[in-house]
């Protein structure tokens, strides 16, 4: 018995190593670390982004020197040397600061009193950020008598009236000016074309063209005059509407007039109920998804960037997937086994490792200047000569094609692998029944390989949605005036520049003068980009799951 238990004891220690216990622990720990890292990363982005819209309370700070101000506490910090604690406060009211900063650091020792006044109002404005203050009065031509000590209802009524005035008098003007602008641009382009043709025509033709150019010029001048006239009228009306103001008092009681026209939204965070806060929150989220950006992208929505990203990915898919799949089929099915095929496979695999900026440079040289330049020479020589190229400059088409090139290796490799890993028995069974190689490929092998090919698509789309560097050279801009798709013929304007969420992160976060103010926007953009990639992947994964169920490879 004793010897037996002794040997058992030795065995146990022995087993620990022989069964690879440490490796099991190491693998589990590594996986846990990775999961923790991913979860933490997602949590930080989600927290930073999603809390931005919550209407937090406004405090009234009374300082030791007697000054008083409204603000939101956004951060707290301890000086490691002195141990002094400071608060970061968003004080808004950018115009009141000589440096136009709306964030301020205050040492805690300077703050003598904290209060949460109920009446404090937050005004979100079209320009210059928020305004914190108390409503003291309303006045203006569209407001019945000047109101002293108005209520929030009075304020809302006045806002409604101003907005109705704007909708009745200014919006039609805007629409007309916009359409005039479009017409003016068209005439300008025609004029450019005619002038270009004059420079190479002779005799009667030149005279005819000169007459046409005169005619166009007159039309252009008329349009411009009309546009200027309308612009003047609009300025007048706007100036008149701007005279409707809210008189706002700051914490010290100083009064400032703020035009009602410039106010996007107003709320009193200190007295809002939770449902009201939730409502406010979701309104802001909706605005983020559907509106255009304001204030050099730090406020407002992200719709153009979301649209641009999705459209770029789809164009990339349309241009790259068919080509990649065909190439993969040839490599996997038809290419003769040997050195050459091996070399091609290695080359394709290596293409996936080329830095994306190199693709960007290639796209700029090949697509933009090469193909785009040639297209301009053929179809828009006058624009190329005038230095305003149509296709010879970055655009969503070139960006998508560049991205397609970048993701092509992933698709080719996935397709080839998927075909190669199908058990040989499948092909043999089919061919033993008298099917040709082509019939076998189309009827048996491709359906079985479809989930694998779709995996390649997923990887390609995820990569394309996240890449920024090549886009910066081939057509992304910080603010695109028009979407690449609109109601004007031919509806798809693939030569237009576009906005992209990834570039938006870089632009807002690192190219903006007001770093603090755009922090939430950077988080939100990152969150949206992640969500978008997740959605696109989810779509493809769902499709793959369904195909897998249908074409599950079963072997007995």
């Amino acid at each position, binding site marked *: 018995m004793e010897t037996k238990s002794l040997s058992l004891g030795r065995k146990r220690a022995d087993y620990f190593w022989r069964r690879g216990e440490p490796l099991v622990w190491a693998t589990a720990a590594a996986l846990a670390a990775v999961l923790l890292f991913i979860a933490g990363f997602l949590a930080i982005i989600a927290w930073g982004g999603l809390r931005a819209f919550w209407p937090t309370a406004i405090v009234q700070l009374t300082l030791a020197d007697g000054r008083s101000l409204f603000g939101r506490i956004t951060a707290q910090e301890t000086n490691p040397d002195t141990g002094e604690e400071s608060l970061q406060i968003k004080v808004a009211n950018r115009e009141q600061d000589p440096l136009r900063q709306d964030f301020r650091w205050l040492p805690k020792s300077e703050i003598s009193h904290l209060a949460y006044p109920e009446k404090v109002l937050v005004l979100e404005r079209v320009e210059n950020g928020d305004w914190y203050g108390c409503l003291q009065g309303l006045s203006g031509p569209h407001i019945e008598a000047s109101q002293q000590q108005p209520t929030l209802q009075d304020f809302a009524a006045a806002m409604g009236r101003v907005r109705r005035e704007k909708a009745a008098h200014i919006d039609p003007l805007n629409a007309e000016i916009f359409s005039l602008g479009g017409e003016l641009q068209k005439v300008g382009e025609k004029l450019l074309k005619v002038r270009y043709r004059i420079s190479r025509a002779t005799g009667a033709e030149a005279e005819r063209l000169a007459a046409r150019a005169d005619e166009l010029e007159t039309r252009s001048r008329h349009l411009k005059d009309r546009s200027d006239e309308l612009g003047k009228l609009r300025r007048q009306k706007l100036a008149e509407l701007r005279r409707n103001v809210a008189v706002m008092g700051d914490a010290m009681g100083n009064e400032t007039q703020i035009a009602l026209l410039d106010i996007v939204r107003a709320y009193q965070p200190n007295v809002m109920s939770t449902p009201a806060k939730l409502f406010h929150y979701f309104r802001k989220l909706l605005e983020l998804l559907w509106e255009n950006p304001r204030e050099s992208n730090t406020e407002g929505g992200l719709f153009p960037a979301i649209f641009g990203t999705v459209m770029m990915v789809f164009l990339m898919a349309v241009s790259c997937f068919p080509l990649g799949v065909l190439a993969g089929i040839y490599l996997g099915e038809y290419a003769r086994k040997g050195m050459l095929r091996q070399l091609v496979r290695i080359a394709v695999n290596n293409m996936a490792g080329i830095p994306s900026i190199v693709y960007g440079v290639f796209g700029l040289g090949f697509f933009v200047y090469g193909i785009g330049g040639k297209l301009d020479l053929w179809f828009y020589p006058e624009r190329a000569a005038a230095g305003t190229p149509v296709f010879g400059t970055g655009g969503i088409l070139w960006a998508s094609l560049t991205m397609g090139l970048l993701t092509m290796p992933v698709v080719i490799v996935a397709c080839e692998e998927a075909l190669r890993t199908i058990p040989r028995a*499948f092909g*043999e*069974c089919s061919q033993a029944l*008298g099917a*040709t190689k082509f019939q076998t490929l189309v*009827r048996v092998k491709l359906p079985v390989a479809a989930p694998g090919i779709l995996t390649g698509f997923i990887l390609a789309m995820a990569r394309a949605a996240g890449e920024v560097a090549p886009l910066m050279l081939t057509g992304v801009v910080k603010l695109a005036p028009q979407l690449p798709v609109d109601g004007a013929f031919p509806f798809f304007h693939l030569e237009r520049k576009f906005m992209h969420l990834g570039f938006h992160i870089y632009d807002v976060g690192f190219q903006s003068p007001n770093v603090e103010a755009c922090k939430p926007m950077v988080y939100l953009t990152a969150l949206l980009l992640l969500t978008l990639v997740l959605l696109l992947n989810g779509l493809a994964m769902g499709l793959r799951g369904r195909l897998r169920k249908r074409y599950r490879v*079963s072997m007995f």
Partner: protein
Amino acid sequence: MLPLVTESALNAGLRNGVVNRPTVDMEKPTGHISEIILQTQELCVSYGAKRVLHNISLSIPRRKVTAIIGPSGCGKSTLLRCFNRMNDLLDNVQTTGSILFEGVEVNDPALDVIELRRRVGMVFQKAVPFPKSIYENVAYGLRIAGIRNPRILDEVVERSLHRAALWDEVKNRLRESALGLSGGQHQRLCIARAIAVNPAVILMDEPCSALDPRAAARIEDLIGELREEYTLVIVTHNMQQAARVSDYTAFLYEGELVEYGPTRQLFTKPEKKQTEDYLTGRFG
């Protein structure tokens, strides 16, 4: 139908691999069909530099079950795959010698391989149903041949499943995925799929080796039934199975045809010492 040659003469001829050149019979204006459907003459196959079949000459009789036995790697499957030129699908395979199928040279490069494979069907060791419905699996051979008429398809599918003894089990779920069937059902489905294109010969490459004994027994019963209409050539490493199901047996060893004759004779009174040693388990 009158046999052209007597049983014993056939047996003797089978052993020598020279009896009844079918071409001669085809030319005879008797209207009779030769008793020999497949005949190989000095068939050699090599994979690259490695010779795997040496001078195989044997004749396979019509509407009989011929078993090919031998130890692993002796070239059984390679021989079987010669009959419908499945070896073409592999790289680096050279075949020399002659194979006659109904008097037509199989190794002729000008031969329509698609047509040959339709006449000489094959069932593999791994039953691989296509990821389609049961119905579509059986109809596959017809569809690729361009037959679209649903009436014909329905009829052939039903008849093939009947013959493969699968009809009663699947008749209510023809449109369901074939992947839901059991292993034994998969193999019968593959047999039905092969039958559907109406072949003259069905080659079976170890059709039961991946099945449990009960499923294997069903396949063996099925082979017994199919012999009435089809010529079957079955490769097996299971000697009992060869003894049970086959009429003729060929014993292959290291790429050479050691002995070929009626199954009962080969198993009870083998002529060659090698055969006896293999059958009694002394090597192999």
